[in-house]
C-alpha cells in the first residue's frame, strides 16, 4: 500500500492507481474510487454477482456523508433493496464534504433515515465506538446472508483534520465542536476502556503501539526501496490480452 501511494512499481497497482484508486482484488478489496459515489453501484454489482453465483459473500460499500447525495447512492440502494442483494452500505458521516457542512446542504442530515424510503433497515451508530459499529455490522451481515437484502449503517463521527493535505480544516469549522469531538477519539477512548476493564494492560498497549509503528516503518522502507516504474509501462494493462487477439 505504501509503495502504491509513493507511485512505485511494487505497489498494488504497479504505481498506476495511487491513493485514490488503490485496490487488492485478491483480498476482495475492489478499490477506492476517485469519483465520489462511483463505488456504490460497483459494490452493489458485486453483491448481485455473489447472489448469482450462490456464494455467501457479502459486499460492503464504504462512502462518506457527501456521497449519500450522489445519484448513484439512491439508484444503487433502490436496486439492492428491490432485488434483496447481499450488500451492506456503510456511511461514515463525518459531517463535512471538503468544506461544506452536511447540515447546510441536506434536508435530513440523518443519513440512516433514508433507508426507510427504500424499504430497508437503516441504523445510526456512534462511529467512534468500536463495539457499536461491530455489532451493527454483524447484524447486517447475518441479514444479508439470509437473503433478506441490504442494510444502511450510518456511523456518526467527526473529522479531526482537514479533508486533504493542505487543508487545515479550520476555516469552515467551529473550534468548540472540533475540541468536543477530539475528546471522543475512538482509538483513545477504546484504549482507555480496555485498560479500565482490565482486558489489556498498559505494557501490552505500548508493545502493540510499538509493533504497529514498526510495521509502518517497514512498509515505508519497502516502499522507498521499490523502484519507480519505467515509462513504457504506462502502455501496459489497458486491455486484457486475449489469445490471438489483434490490438
Amino acid at each position, binding site marked *: 500500500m505504501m509503495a502504491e501511494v509513493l507511485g512505485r512499481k511494487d505497489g498494488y497497482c504497479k504505481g498506476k492507481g495511487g491513493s485514490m484508486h488503490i485496490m487488492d482484488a485478491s483480498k476482495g478489496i475492489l478499490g477506492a474510487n476517485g469519483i465520489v459515489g462511483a463505488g456504490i453501484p460497483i459494490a452493489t454489482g458485486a453483491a448481485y454477482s455473489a447472489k448469482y453465483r450462490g456464494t455467501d459473500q457479502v459486499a460492503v460499500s464504504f462512502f462518506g456523508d457527501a456521497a449519500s447525495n450522489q445519484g448513484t447512492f439512491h439508484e444503487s440502494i433502490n436496486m439492492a433493496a428491490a432485488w434483496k442483494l447481499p450488500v451492506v452500505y456503510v456511511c461514515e458521516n463525518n459531517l463535512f464534504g471538503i468544506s461544506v457542512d452536511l447540515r447546510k446542504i441536506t434536508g435530513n442530515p440523518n443519513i440512516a433515515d433514508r433507508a426507510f424510503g427504500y424499504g430497508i433497515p437503516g441504523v445510526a451508530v456512534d462511529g467512534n465506538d468500536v463495539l457499536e459499529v461491530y455489532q451493527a455490522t454483524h447484524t447486517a451481515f447475518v441479514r444479508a446472508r439470509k437473503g433478506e437484502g441490504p442494510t444502511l449503517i450510518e456511523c456518526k463521527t467527526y473529522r479531526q483534520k482537514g479533508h*486533504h*493535505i*493542505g487543508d*487545515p480544516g479550520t*476555516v469552515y469549522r467551529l473550534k468548540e465542536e472540533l475540541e468536543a469531538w477530539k475528546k471522543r477519539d475512538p482509538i483513545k477512548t477504546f484504549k482507555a476502556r480496555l485498560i479500565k476493564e482490565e482486558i489489556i494492560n498498559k505494557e501490552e498497549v505500548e508493545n502493540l503501539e510499538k509493533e504497529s509503528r514498526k510495521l509502518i516503518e517497514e512498509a515505508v522502507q519497502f516502499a522507498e526501496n521499490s523502484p519507480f516504474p519505467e515509462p513504457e509501462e504506462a502502455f501496459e494493462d489497458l486491455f486484457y490480452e486475449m489469445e490471438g487477439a489483434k490490438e
Partner: protein
Amino acid sequence: MAKYIIMPKLGFNMDQGTVVQWLKKEGDTIKEREEVLEIETDKTVMPVEAPCSGILRKILVAEGEVVPVTLPIAIIGDKNEDISQMMEEAYQKLGKKEVIEALKEVTPVIEKKPTQEPRKEAEKRISPRARRKAKELGIQIEGLTGSGPASAISEKDVLAYYEIHQEKINLEDQVDKRIPYTGMRKIIGDRLSQSKFTAPHVYFTVSIDMTNVTVLLKRYNRDMEERISVNDFLIFAVSRVLAEQPKMNSSLINEEIIYHKAVNIGVAVALEEGLIVPVLKEANQKGVSAISKEMRTLIRLARERKLMPEDYQGGTFTISNLGMYGVENFTAIINLPEAAILSLGEIKKMPVVIKESKKVEIRSIMKATVSVDHRLIDGAIAAIFLKQVKDYLEFPEGLVL
C-alpha cells in the same frame, strides 16, 4: 539522535512556505507532535508538529523567511549532542552562505514577428500522387496542365502527358545540348532579371498612324544617297518629346531621382550572341540626318564588336524596334537605371476609320508600347508622353513648326 524539522509540503502546488511564528525557542523541551511553529502557504497558516521529542537545539530560519519545501528549518536533539555537521549541511541546503535572490522570472515578451512572406506557392495545383508520378517519370511540373477541379493536376494528367511526349522523345535525338550560362548571355540575363525584379513595370500601348511619316521619308529618300529610315525619324521624334518631358528622361539612383540634362537614346541592336544597346548621345540636339548618320556608324560598330564603353554607357532612354520581324507589339524590359523603354512593332497596312470623313481608308499603323518604372512615372505621365510621340509622328509638321 538529532532530527531536522523540515518545511513540509502541504499540497500538490506548494513549493515554498513562510515561517510565520516560532512557538518555541531554542533550548525549549519539545514533545513529539507538539506544535513548534506556524508556517504560511499562499492560502493558509498551518501549524508544524515536532517529528520527535527532544530539545529545540537550533532554529535555522527566522520568522518571515521563505523556505522551499523539504528543506530543514530547525534541529531537535539531545541537550549535549554535537549538531555542527547537521547545521552546516542545513545551511548549505538553505543557501545561506550568501543571499541567493530567487531569480525573478520575467515573462518573456514574445515580439510579434513580422508576418513572413507566404511561401510562394507554385500557381499550379497538383496532388501528392501526381507529383510523385511526375518525379518518377522525369516530367517537369511546369509543363503539365490539370483536368481536375480548379485545374488541379492529377495522376492521370501526368500519365496522359507522358504518353504524348514519350512519342516525341523517341523521335528526337536523345541527348540534350548543354552549354554553361556565362558571358554576354549571363550579363544580359542578370541585368534584365534585376530590372524586372526591381522596377515595377507598367505598360502603355498606342497605335500610331505612320502614313504621313512614311510618305514624308519616301519623298525625301527618293533623291538622297544616304537614306533616312523610319527608325531614325522615330529617334528624332522621341528625343524631342523627352526634351519636353523630363520625367520620362529620369533615373532613380541611390534614393535620388535624377532628371538628366541630356537625352541619350539607346537603340537596341540584335546580335547573334545577344542584345546590345549603343547610345546616341544628345539626340535632341541633332537633326534627323545627323541621327541617321550616327546610327549607321553605331550599328556597324556594334556588328563588328567594336563598340567602346562610352558608346553603350550613359543612356537615358531606350528604343527597341522589332517591326522588321513582323512583331505586332511587345513589352520590353526597362534598361535600368533608365525610367522607360519604348517598344515598336511593325508598320502594317490596316483599314482605319478617318474621324473627319467617317470613311474607312487603308493606313500604315504601328503599335508602340512604353514600359515605365512606376517608381518614377505614373500612368498620366506615360500617357502624355505617348500622346505627344503619336502626335509628332502623325503630324510631323509639329516637329518643324
